[in-house]
């Protein structure tokens, strides 16, 4: 609020100009807290080699299923691998897949949404019908079908097809929301002006309309990072996502982990906490970002 009300004191009436980030942190304490969690995760993901106490793949038969201790903070798994290290490396997997698939899905979805609103008419109808088809599936079901269809394609140890499988269900959901926002942009005089000036469709879409739907785009992008991390964990849990021996949170919960309910509950507890915390942070951050950028906007 920069408008000074009559009864406020002088100090309040003239606030220091703040950057948008400082303003966000002040207005949205919950968002700030989630931002801290995200930063910690990113730090762990980027500097895994330095942060993690052990090699995540090192098998140690001397300490199989060791309970949490000072040596192994989160215990060890059935191969004696340090769970804490695997969680740290797992944050890299989750972030890479979560971010890239959400980014790809949201970006293509946003472009389709804007194009749909800009061209209108028949093109709009066709795009919307295709989106309707994709919307008829829960995220995980569509991702599973794509996994079944495409199989695996490893590039630098990352399964590209897994990313595609998670990006496709995100696409129509973003397209729908961005289209709605783009409709209000399309009727703006500057779009008419751009057309009158003879600019190409691509230029109008990317240079004139896209910058004005950045708010919903960013909100959807963060919210869907959360969904993508969740989808990756579910797929890996089912054995259809990330494969052993790569460290991934969902994978740590699958396979023999369920046989160790009695002997080794830490094998189940910690990876689940990691997934929940990460998804929680991105959801909360997206929520706060929405309140901050556009209070009227609803996902």
């Amino acid at each position, binding site marked *: 609020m920069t408008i000074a009300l009559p009864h406020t004191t002088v100090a309040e009436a003239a606030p220091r100009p703040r950057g948008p980030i400082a303003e966000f942190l002040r207005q949205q304490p*919950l968002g700030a807290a989630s931002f801290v969690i995200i930063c910690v995760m990113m730090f762990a993901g980027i500097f895994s080699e330095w942060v993690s106490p052990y090699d995540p793949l090192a098998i140690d038969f001397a300490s199989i299923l060791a309970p949490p201790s000072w040596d192994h903070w989160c215990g060890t798994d059935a191969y004696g691998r340090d769970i804490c290290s695997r969680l740290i490396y797992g944050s890299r997997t989750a972030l890479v897949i979560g971010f890239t698939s959400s980014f790809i899905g949201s970006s293509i979805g946003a472009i389709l949404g804007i194009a749909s609103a800009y061209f209108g008419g028949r093109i709009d109808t066709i795009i919307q*019908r*295709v989106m*309707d*088809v*994709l919307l*008829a*599936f*829960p*995220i*995980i*079901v569509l991702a*599973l*079908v*794509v*996994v*079944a*269809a*495409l*199989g695996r394609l490893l590039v630098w140890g990352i399964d590209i097809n897994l990313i595609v499988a998670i990006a496709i269900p995100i696409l129509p959901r973003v397209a729908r929301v961005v289209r709605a926002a783009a409709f209000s942009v399309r009727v703006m005089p500057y779009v008419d002006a751009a057309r009158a000036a003879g600019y190409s469709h691509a230029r109008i879409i990317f240079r004139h309309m896209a910058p004005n739907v950045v708010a919903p785009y960013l909100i959807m992008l963060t919210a869907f990072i*959360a969904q993508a991390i*969740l989808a990756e*964990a*579910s797929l890996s*849990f*089912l*054995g*259809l996502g990330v494969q052993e021996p790569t460290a991934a949170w*969902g994978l740590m*919960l699958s396979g023999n982990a*369920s046989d160790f*309910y*009695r002997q080794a*509950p830490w094998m*189940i*507890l910690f990876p*689940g906490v990691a*997934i*929940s915390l990460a*998804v*929680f942070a991105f*959801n*909360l951050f997206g*929520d706060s970002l929405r309140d901050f950028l556009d209070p009227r906007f*609803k996902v």
Partner: protein
Amino acid sequence: MLRYTINRVLLTIPTLLGVAVLVFFMLRIIPGDIVEVKLRGDGGAVTQETIDMERHRLGLDKPLMVQFEDWMVGVATLNLGISMWTERPVMEEISLRLELSLEVAILATIIALLFAIPLGTTAALNRDTWIDYLMRIFTIGGISIPAFWFGMLIMLSLLAAFNWLPPITFTPLYVDPVANITQLIWPAASVGYRYCAVTARMIRSSLLEVMSEDYIRTARAKGVYEKLIISRHALRNALLPAITVISLEFTFLIGGLVVTEQVFNLNGIGQLFVQSVTRNDFTLIQGMVMLIAAFYVFVNLVVDLLYAVFDPRIRYA
């Protein structure tokens, strides 16, 4: 109303057609099919001849367009073909497991609504207080905690508290209701948490919207009890938009069940779907995807029609 209904029903056809086309061609983009998995899966040496014979038997050697035609005719006549793995009709495989999954879904809905309505209402009435913040954390937790892990936690706590795990074999409700409920209430609770969270958020925001309407002010001015205003005037109107979310989430419960049935080892639709994907069982995948989409489209249709009944502005638009 009739015209609106006809229009709305006709609109479902392109969607269903699109699903049928999409799923058929998507599964055939990449070469490699069930025959390879089935016969070469164990690493055994199998001659090309055997593979070709099996392909022929399953009709996989027919031209793509002929296969497509068979599939589309099948969809139109509700004959979804024969599972390539178990060799039994797809419809039979599905109907065997539908009862269990449907029951879990209904139980989850009941649990979710039981909690969501009071939660959403309390949060809206105590907006921006600590109650509202707690509710916000609870609901964001619901959309963040993976249902399957929540299920594992439930099992773990049952084990720790009572040294007991839910039974694994399915008993139908009409045979032994107690055994049935003690088995299915846990998976229902684990997928129900997310459902409850989504619904509670929706009820909160739509109740907040309704509370600022003129007719609420009128009711207050008349001196109606606040409790009565909320239950009779506000909540009734707020529930209408919530119905959309409730019914769409219901169709999306299958998404949660796909993973959660694995945890509780339930032989339901979700597990069948995962099995069909791991086995590359094209006919079964196609059939299930078709049914899931049809169910979604159908529920969507019913919701839209109900809306038009309740809110005349829609059918005249």
